[in-house]
């Protein structure tokens, strides 16, 4: 099984919030920044990669039941977003990689035998 925890150690991601839920398993990847669009397209157990960092990100993640959110390219995250992700048990991660590079690396992880 592929989990958020496994992803964090493999990609050396920064765990910003939601540690309680890093046992979530992951199925696929979704990349998007237009929240209303993400809302209607993201799937359950997706790793969602975005550069948006406002509190609505947590709401969309909760609604879409994603396994975790990765903030790409080291974008700064608002304090309220971190607090809410902690409350909602949504793993909020960060990386300096671009969304594309993250997706490539996650794909390698998902295809591991």
């Amino acid at each position, binding site marked *: 099984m592929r989990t958020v925890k496994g992803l964090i150690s493999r990609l050396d991601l920064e765990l910003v919030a939601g540690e309680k839920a890093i046992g979530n398993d992951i199925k696929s990847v979704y990349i998007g920044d*237009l*929240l*209303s*669009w993400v*809302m209607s397209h993201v799937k359950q157990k997706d790793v969602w990669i975005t550069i948006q960092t*406002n*509190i*609505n990100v*947590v*709401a*969309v993640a*909760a*609604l879409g039941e994603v396994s975790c959110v990765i903030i790409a390219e080291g974008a700064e995250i608002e304090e309220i977003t971190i607090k*809410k992700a902690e409350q909602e048990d949504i793993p909020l991660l960060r990386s300096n990689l671009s969304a594309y590079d993250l997706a490539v690396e996650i794909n390698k992880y998902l295809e591991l035998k």
Partner: protein
Amino acid sequence: MKELALHILDVTENSIKAHATEIQIIIKEDIIKDLLTIEIKDNGDGMDEDTLAKVTDPFFTTRTTRKVGLGLSLFKTTALQCNGAFKINSKKGKGTTVVASFQHSHIDRAPMGNMEETIVTLITANKDIEYSYTHFSNNNKFEFNTMEIKKILRNVEITETTVLFWLKEYIKEGLQGVVKK
């Protein structure tokens, strides 16, 4: 949302749910001030201060089927991300006014989108509500209101297919006349 018209539709649907009988949509495009303002005003139920303080919190919703409601939260974020501002005024029993402004030339500002489709969708959603739509573009103005249209139509329903089709064309042409590309 990819178009601002979709935000307008979303906010106006809140007004309908709040039993408004009159809804005003006012859009102002000012190129010199580099400002786009969208105002949606209704005479619906309104909100008390407690509710008003919570409506742009994405984890607040009046819906019971899920625990997050994002309409106003997204609209607010969209405005703020485009160097704009967002404000809601409301009084219980009086109505609610939502005002969002944007830097007109901001690269992340979504295009206006299809306003004629939005207005017709709203009329279809509830034909008894009186809608007025005013669109200012610099010194030009386009005005539309269902009360006047209904007066002309007399016994013909505003939701007749041919009427709706005509309205769509009328609004589209009216807007083309005032909004300079």
